[in-house]
Structure formats: C-alpha cells, structure tokens
C-alpha cells in the first residue's frame, strides 16, 4: 500500500474489515466478530508466533474491542508486548494497553517497571511511547514510581519529549495535586523553554493552575502579555502559522489565561489592553481560526477590567459574527453577546433582530444557545415574552435532559420577575403540566413555599389574591386527565392549605375534589399521602372554626381503604386524620393552626423538659453525662489506655506506600523557597546556555520585583525570530475588515451569491422585517414602556448601530496606518534569532499544500478575495447547499468507466463546509484519480473489493 509505509496488515485483517463492512445487521456483525475473537484466542496463545504476527493480532484485538466486544483475554499479551525489545512491538504494546486498560486495572503493576525503564531509554521514541502510557495509566499510587524519571525528562534535548513530559506532570497534578505540589514550579520554568511548542504545551497546566489559584500567578501577567505580543508580531518560526495566523492555538490559550488573571484586577488588566487591542485589529476574520481567536478576545475583554475601547471592538466583532451566514459564527456571536451584556447591557439592543432570527433557526444548538442568552437578559419588562417562548420550545422538544433544564429556568425566571400573580400561576401550571415529571421536586417545594409566603412584600391582600387564583386554577386543572405526580402534590397541598381560605368554595367541595384525586391516581402513594394530609387540614380548619364536620361518604370509604393500606405512611396519615376529627376545636387549633406553614417551629434543643427525669435518674445512682470533649481528655490522662490505642494502630495494615519523603508545602509559598526545597533535583538543561546571554540584560532584573526566581521573560522576548513585522499583512487585514463592515460588500456578495441566507444588513431590515418580528423585538428588548412605538423601534435601532460601525471603522483604519508606521521601523536583529532570516509576508503560492489549505479554508460570507488571489472569483461558488449533497454513491463501483466519469467531472462535495469551484478542485486534486485507482487496484489485488454495500469506503474525505 505504497503511501501507507509499513503499517499494512495482512489479508485476513482486510477480510475481516470487509466482511464487517458488508454485514447487513448488527447480529451478523456480532457473529463475524465473535468468530474473529475465537480465531484470535487460539492463535494468540501460541507460544512461538512471530513478533510481526503478534503485533497484528493485538491491533485486531483493539479493533474488535472498539466494535464493542470484550477482548480482555488478550490484555496480558498486550502487556507482554510492552516488555519487548523491538521498538515497533513495544509501541504497539503501549498503544494497546493505553486503549485496553484503565489506571486501576490489575495488570498495571506489570507495566510500571517497564515504563520506568523506558522513560530512561536512549531512544526518544521509546520515551515518548512510555510517556503516552504514563498519561493514561499511572494513578495516584503509582505516581511516585515514575515521577523522578518524568521530571528528568522535562529537560530532555528533544522538544517532543519535553512536551510530553510536561503533559505527564500535568496529568499527575490532575490526579493527585498533593503528590506533585512541590514540582509546580517546573511549569513556570518550562514557560521559558527555547522551543515555542513546549512553551505552548506548558500553557495547558498553567491555565489549570491559574484557574484554581489566580493570586499566586499574578506575577506572570507581564510574561504572558509579552509572549502574546511576540506571537502576534509573528516572531515565532513560520512553522507555527496556521492558515496564515501566527500560532493561533497558543494565542487562544494565552487569551484564556489573561482573562483569568485580569478578572477583577484593574492593574493587571491595564497591561493587557494594548495587546488585546492589537489582536482585534490584526485578526483575519475570514478564516475559521481567525474567528476563534477573535471570539477568545471577546471573552477576554468581557472578563478583564472593562475598557471602553476594547468593548467597542468586541461589540464590532460580535456584530460581524451575528451578521455572518455561518451558523458556527452566529453561535459564537450569541455566546459572546451573552458574555458582553453582563458589562454593557445596551449592546444587546443593536442585535435584537439577529437574536430573534437565531431563535427561529432550524439549528437546535443555535436555538438553545439563544435561549441561554435570553435567560441571561431577562428583565421584568420582557419576562413574559421570554418565558412564553421558552415554554413553547420546551413543549416542542423530546430531549428530556434539556426539557428539565429549560423548565427549571422558566420557574426561576417566573419566580424572579413575575409581573402578576395570575401570570405566575398560569406559567407554573404550564411548566408543570408539560414537564412536571422532569422537574426537580425542589422546584415544586419552592412553588409551595412561594404561594405560602407570597412575594415577600407585606401586602396580605396580594398574597391572598395569589392564593385564591392558585386555588381557582388548580380546581380547573384537576379536570384534565393524567397530570404529573409532582404537580398533583403541589395542587393537593395548596388546596389543603388555602382551598377554603377565601370562602368561595365549601369544605365539602374541596374535600370531594381531593378524594377524586386520591382515587384517580390510586397507584401513586405520594399523591395519596398529600391528599390525605390536605383532607386533614380542611377538616381541622372546619373544626377550629366551630363548624360541624360531615365526612363525605366517598371520603369515608377512602379512609377505610387507607387504614388498611400496605403503606405504613398512608396508614399513619389516615389514623391521624381519624384522631384529629375526634378532637375539640381548641385542641385542633393547637395541633393544626391554619395558614401556619411558614411559621417557625420552635425546637427546645436543650431538651429542658427532660430535666426532671434526669435528676430522678441521678438520684437513683446513674452516671452523669460527660461531654465528648472532656471524655477524650480523660483518655489522655489514663495513660495505659492511650498506649493500647497506639499499638493497635501501628499493628494495622499500612495502605500508604513507602513513598518518597515529601514536604507538605503550600502552593502559596513563593517560588524561590520552593526551588531550594525541591526534592527531585532538576539538572539545569544543557540547552539553557543559549538563553543566559539574553537574560543578563540589565533591564530585566530592574523591573523584575519580588522574587529572585521570577521569570525573566524580558530576555526571552528577544528569542523568537527577528522583529520583522510585515506591513503587507496588516494592510490586507484592514482591507478585509473594510469589506466586512462595509454594507456595499455585503450587498455585492448578495447579488453574486443568489442563495445565501438573508443577511441582517441595515438596508434590508427596512424591507424584510415582518411586523411580528418587530413586535417580538420590541417586547424582548424595548420593554413595555415603548410598546406604543413598536413599529418604530425596529426601524430606528439599526441606524445608529450602522453609524457606530462606520465611525469605529474609520478610527480603526487610522490606527491601522499608525501601526504600519510603527512596523516599518525595524528593530535591530536579535542575537538569538532562530527563526527564518526573513519572514515572508505573503504565503508562497508555489507550495501545493498551501494551495490545498487555501481550499480547505471555510469561505464565509465575507471571505475576501485576497486569500486566494485569482481563484477567488471561482471560490465564490454560489451554491452553498449543493456543497453538502453527497457525491453519488458508487463512484468506485466495479464499473471502471463509471469511476472515470465520476471523477473527471467531480461533483462539488467539499466536506470542509467551504466552497470550491470545480475548476480548482480538479487542479489540486490532480493526483486524486490516480491515487484512488491505485488504492482500489491494490485492494483488488488483496482480494477485498468491497461490493455494493459500502463503496463509500473509498471515497476521498476531501471530496
């Protein structure tokens, strides 16, 4: 299999894959796999199979297990393979054990020793394989066994090993922070690693550490800012560029870290403003990854101490996201909006129509995100609309998990913002009726409490109104069949407490209803219990009021049934009811005071009523009570018992391993002292020599501050590449921004792109917005006071917003010019320049893969022509929908001519969601046909030509 190197498997394996692929049912597949398991069982236990065969069997086992069948019989063989001397066999062994075993598996003990040895191996590939296994298979108990070796590898000359060792240490930290707490300073050290890849990897553990304890890492703010600055200025080697962005994944991690560090810290935030602003300007919003960085910037801006200029840039970026045709960007836009409205609530207003469109989008994910946003921006003025929408959506979905969530959100919003009692009760009724069985019982208890307490104000008439409207609506609802149990419990409780309170309904009417409930839901004991207690309350109220109580005949028969019930709870309640009815008014009033559910019950914690009894007992010779604290003191005095106790404990099994002596150090301790007490000595890595030269820069120490071990990143700053800021890129990004913001460009793409979805460009809003939408927008964003001006708000708002966009854009371009000027001033080359001598600004178009990359890039609505040069015109393929249509199955059918015709006229099936013109596809996919045919031929040779059921197996992923 030419291109597949030496990884190929035997014909048997191909046969297996083929037959599984062709299986028509799950049962048939299972039969085939079970057959395979039998074969493997027989062969694998053969003592003298060649290693190569063994390797294949293990891979086949992994495959079988991925299909969901137990392959545990082969685990031990995988473990044995890790002991092998051959690199290939060993690697396969490690792969298999990481997939088969978990950290608590019994066989791990057999691997630890091998891992220990392999971590010390000369061959870095072996060390890498072992580190992979370490990440997955080492648990808290075995960490000490491999920790020294892993720490040593942090200084390995190969950067791949250093990266993995950092990850392994991070993993240890996740599993057991205490066992590596003395080593966290290593992460700080790795941050200054010469290799940007290792530095990037170190950001993962640092991010986690900072999430847990921000304050210990505040000293790193400047370092992170300076790294981010270097990254954005393209001082990293060109290899880190991804889709023309400089190291975007590192940028994203850094922005996340800065967001944590700057949260609520004005001083730290101020250091970040410049660099974050730079990213906003430089970011290429035509590529997916560019938008990822932009989104992260918005998150960062909304988390750190607010800065008006940055907030404006963030709002701009959000509006671009929301106006985009891409669902992904809309999703991110909604999410970002949710973050930003916490700081500047007014920006939501500009985007009201976009938000409403997202709410009506067929994409469920987007819809849910939008509901999340609405949830965040609910006020008393728009609560009715939002909750109604939520309930409608809740009714329409089947996903129980989300139904539960949205139901509890509705309840929460209704409780917080309800405009009227009537509305509140109705909303709760709807929620309970449709999702009653899903909501947490706590929600039901909350509702009961709320009805009992009222809305907190000392307005008794409002409270009693709330109660009587609840009673009325519940009596009405009881007529409906099949209500959720939780809802019925609420109904019973409310009817019991307040059914007769306003005097509109007679006791016999309410009790009749309650009896109906208990009969209709006779298989639900909780509901029956609630009903009985409610009955008891009603009767108690009647008795207390001095009225004569007549038990309804159906009620009596119900009681008789309950008195003989299998449920002790029901029985007890029924007996209590019987007893209460027999009492006089005075007694009943003290047992069951009316409307006292909110009163606190006084509990005599000192149990003073028992004093007499105790005195009696002491007089009769009983030991007085000794409090626990004094008791233990007595134990200390009685020496012999104490010794006894001690011995007992020392004889017991010790579960703690004899581990390395370790100091219990707080993570708060400054790094300087940490370093001195470090138990596992970290030899200074050899390659560090280079960086010394720069770290001696005097300015580095002068502004350093507190600890001497503080990172000197001021020196590091000079490491990556020379300061050749490319003016060409900055201009191109500014032009692309221009095209984004400008209305004309959007319009242009509209005309050329006949089937793009409607955009939210301001001109269109005048034309296309339906009155309903405007109304909705007004009620969501405008508030009730503006309701008269409803049609006006829809028209009015977009105008200022577009104005703002233009203004900010003008400012932006002027800033762009300034930055260009700055950039043209070149700094002298650094000493430690290991980047390419000259950083080319434009991507070389000769590289065929670059061309491919260009194709793969998702072309969003505002894709600028700059990216693809002359091909761009073709790139704007108008048919977005067509791209997702499947290539007609059977391209690789047996008929050869079919293949040829299928490929010579390739259907536009770009799976990257981007747009490719057929022309470009052909030119870049030149080898496609040949390769595919080769592959096909090879498989034929092996005798596994898949027949009709899965010809797609051969379909090139890229179209």
């Amino acid at each position, binding site marked *: 299999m030419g*291109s597949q*190197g*030496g*990884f*190929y498997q035997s014909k048997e394996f191909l046969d297996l*894959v083929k037959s*599984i*692929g062709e299986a028509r049912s799950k049962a048939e597949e299972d039969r085939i796999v079970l057959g395979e398991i039998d074969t493997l069982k027989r062969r694998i236990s053969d003592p003298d199979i060649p290693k190569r065969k063994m390797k294949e069997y293990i*891979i086949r086992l*992994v495959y079988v297990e*991925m*299909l*969901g069948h137990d392959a545990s019989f082969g685990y031990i063989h995988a473990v044995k393979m890790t002991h092998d*001397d*051959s*690199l290939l066999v060993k690697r396969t062994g490690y*792969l298999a054990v990481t*997939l088969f075993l978990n950290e608590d598996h019994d066989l791990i003990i057999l691997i630890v020793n091998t891992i220990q*040895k392999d971590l*010390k*191996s000369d061959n870095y*590939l*072996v060390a890498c394989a072992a580190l992979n296994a370490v*990440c997955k298979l080492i648990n808290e108990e075995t960490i000490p066994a491999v920790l020294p070796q892993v720490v*040593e590898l942090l200084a390995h000359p190969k950067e*791949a090993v250093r990266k*993995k060792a950092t*990850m392994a240490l*991070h993993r240890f930290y996740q599993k057991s922070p205490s066992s590596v707490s003395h080593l966290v300073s290593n992460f700080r050290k790795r941050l200054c690693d010469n290799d940007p890849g290792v530095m990037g990897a170190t950001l*993962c553990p640092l991010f986690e550490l900072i999430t847990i304890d921000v304050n210990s890492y505040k000293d790193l703010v400047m370092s992170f800012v300076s790294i981010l600055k270097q990254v954005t200025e393209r001082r990293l080697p060109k290899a880190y560029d*991804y*889709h023309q962005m400089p190291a*975007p994944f590192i940028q*994203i991690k850094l922005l*996340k870290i800065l967001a944590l560090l700057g949260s609520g810290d004005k001083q730290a935030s101020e250091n970040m403003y410049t660099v974050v602003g730079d990213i906003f300007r430089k970011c290429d919003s035509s590529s*997916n*990854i560019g938008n*990822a960085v932009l*989104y*992260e910037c918005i998150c960062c801006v909304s988390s750190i101490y607010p800065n008006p200029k940055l907030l404006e840039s963030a709002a701009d970026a959000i509006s671009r996201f929301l106006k985009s045709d*891409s*669902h992904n960007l809309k*999703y991110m836009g909604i999410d970002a909006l949710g973050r930003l409205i916490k700081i500047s609530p007014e920006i939501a207003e500009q985007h009201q129509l976009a938000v409403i469109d997202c709410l009506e989008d067929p*994409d469920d994910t987007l819809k*849910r995100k939008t509901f999340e946003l609405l949830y965040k921006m609910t006020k008393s003025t728009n609560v009715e609309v939002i909750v109604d929408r939520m309930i409608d959506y809740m009714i329409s979905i089947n996903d129980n998990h989300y139904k539960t969530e949205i139901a509890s959100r509705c309840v929460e919003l209704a409780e917080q913002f309800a405009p009227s009692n009537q509305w509140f009760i109705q909303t709760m009724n709807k929620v309970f009726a449709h999702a009653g069985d899903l909501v947490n019982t706590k929600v039901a208890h909350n509702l009961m409490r709320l009805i009992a307490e009222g809305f907190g104000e000392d307005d008794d008439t409002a409270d009693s109104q709330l109660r009587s409207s609840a009673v009325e609506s519940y009596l009405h609802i009881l007529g409906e069949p099949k209500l959720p149990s939780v809802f019925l419990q609420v109904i019973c409780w409310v009817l019991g407490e307040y059914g007769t309170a306003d005097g509109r309904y007679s006791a016999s009417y309410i009790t009749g209803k309650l009896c109906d409930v208990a009969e209709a839901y006779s298989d639900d004991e909780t509901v029956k219990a609630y009903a009985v207690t409610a009955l008891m309350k009603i009767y108690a109220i009647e008795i207390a009021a001095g009225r004569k109580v007549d038990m309804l005949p159906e009620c009596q028969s119900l009681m008789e049934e309950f008195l003989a019930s299998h449920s002790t709870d029901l029985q007890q309640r029924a007996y209590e009811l019987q007893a209460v009815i027999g009492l006089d008014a005075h007694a009943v009033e003290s047992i069951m005071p009316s409307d006292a559910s909110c009163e606190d019950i006084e509990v005599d914690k000192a149990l003073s009523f028992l004093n007499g009894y105790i005195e009696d007992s002491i007089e009769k010779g009983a030991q007085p009570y000794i409090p626990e604290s004094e008791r233990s003191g007595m134990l200390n005095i009685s020496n012999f018992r104490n010794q006894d106790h001690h011995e007992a404990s020392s004889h017991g099994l010790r579960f703690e391993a004899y581990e390395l002596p370790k100091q219990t150090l707080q993570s708060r301790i400054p790094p300087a002292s940490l370093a001195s007490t470090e138990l596992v000595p970290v030899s200074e890595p050899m390659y560090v020599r280079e960086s010394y030269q720069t770290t001696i820069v005097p300015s580095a120490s002068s502004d350093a501050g507190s600890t001497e071990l503080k990172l000197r990143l001021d020196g590091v700053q000079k490491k990556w590449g020379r300061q050749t800021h490319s003016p060409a890129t900055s201009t191109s990004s500014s032009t692309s921004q221009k095209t984004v913001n400008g209305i004309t460009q959007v319009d242009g793409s509209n005309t050329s792109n006949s089937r793009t979805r409607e955009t939210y460009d301001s001109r269109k809003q005048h034309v296309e917005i339906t009155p309903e939408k405007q109304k909705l927008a007004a009620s969501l964003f405008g508030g009730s006071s503006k309701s008269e001006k409803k049609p006006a708000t829809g028209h009015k708002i977009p105008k200022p917003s577009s104005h703002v966009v233009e203004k900010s854009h003008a400012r932006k371009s002027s800033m762009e010019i300034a930055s260009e000027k700055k950039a043209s001033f070149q700094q002298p080359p650094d000493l430690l320049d290991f980047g390419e001598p000259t950083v080319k600004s434009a991507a070389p178009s000769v590289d065929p893969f670059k061309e491919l990359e260009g194709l*793969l890039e998702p072309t969003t609505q505002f894709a600028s022509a700059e990216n693809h040069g002359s091909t761009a015109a073709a790139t704007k393929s108008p048919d977005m*929908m067509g791209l*997702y249509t499947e290539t007609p199955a059977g391209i690789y059918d047996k008929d050869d001519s079919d293949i040829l015709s299928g490929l010579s006229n390739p259907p536009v099936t770009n*799976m990257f*969601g981007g747009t490719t013109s057929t022309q470009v596809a052909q030119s870049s996919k030149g080898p*496609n046909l040949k*390769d*595919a045919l080769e592959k096909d031929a090879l498989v034929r040779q092996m005798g596994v030509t898949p027949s009709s059921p899965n010809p*797609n*197996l*051969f*379909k*090139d*992923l*890229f179209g």
Partner: protein
Amino acid sequence: MIKAVMVINTQGKPRLAKFFEYLPLEKQQELIRNVFGVLCSRPENVSNFVEAESIFGPDSRLVYKHFATLYVIFVFDSSENELAMLDLIQVLVETLDRCFKNVCELDIVFNYSKIHTILDDIICGGQVLETRSTEIMRAVEEISKLEAAPNAITLIPKSSSGWLSR
C-alpha cells in the same frame, strides 16, 4: 480538556474511538451510539456544534465535522474554544491527508495504529500538544521509516546510559 475523539461513519460504525478519561466498554459503545443518533438527525447546513450535556454529563461540548462518509467528533469541556476545536479536527484530517494522500475511510480502517500515533502526537492526556501538521508528519515518518526498514524489528540499544549519565 478534551474528553474524547471519535470517528464514526455515516452508517454508525465506529472507525476510531479514543477516550481520554477511562470509561467502561459498554459506556463507550453507548456514547458512540448516542452521538451518532444525534448527528444523523441533524439537518444539513447547520452549525458544527451540538449540545452534549445530555450525553456526556455537565460541562461538555461536542464539535463535529462531516467528511464524505465520516463524522469526526471531538468532545471537550469549557476550557477549550469551540471554533479552535473545529480547526483541530481540520489539523487532524489535514495530517491524515498528507499521510495517506487523499485520505479516505478505508485508510483509517486499515491503518489503525498509525492513526493512533498521529492522534497521540496531537493530543496527550486530553490536552492539545501539537497543531503543526508538518511536525506531526515528521514524527510519524520517523516511525514509518523504522517499520519500512529491511530489518524492521529494530532492536533498541539495551544500555540505559545515554544522555542521562553524561
């Protein structure tokens, strides 16, 4: 942190599954089934993100991408950026494409261990380790060379001296 990487074909057959936190076999299968159920019911032309909390528990997000006959799926938590994960899928598939020249489903089935090697280079212990496909390719090719060598079963020098003892 990334919780899982899956490759499922459009008929629901798993082609690759890697969970970065241990899960019992049955649970893995159930998750794969559930994910496929959600993905195949999604309309075309919608976002690449799916609400995953009902499948994977709280704080989990799912990003997928549909290639020819395959879904490539990443599951991760809130410490990762969705759009960046989408690009990570892109990195993975681009790397595969470089590796196999016009990668197709068949390549993934037949080169199981190689795919895992690539994945181990990109993600380690649930964290993104490497995003340069050239770099990943180099590492993979180094191993390929060893495998393709005539005496493919190369012995590792037994001495554990090397750079450490220096």
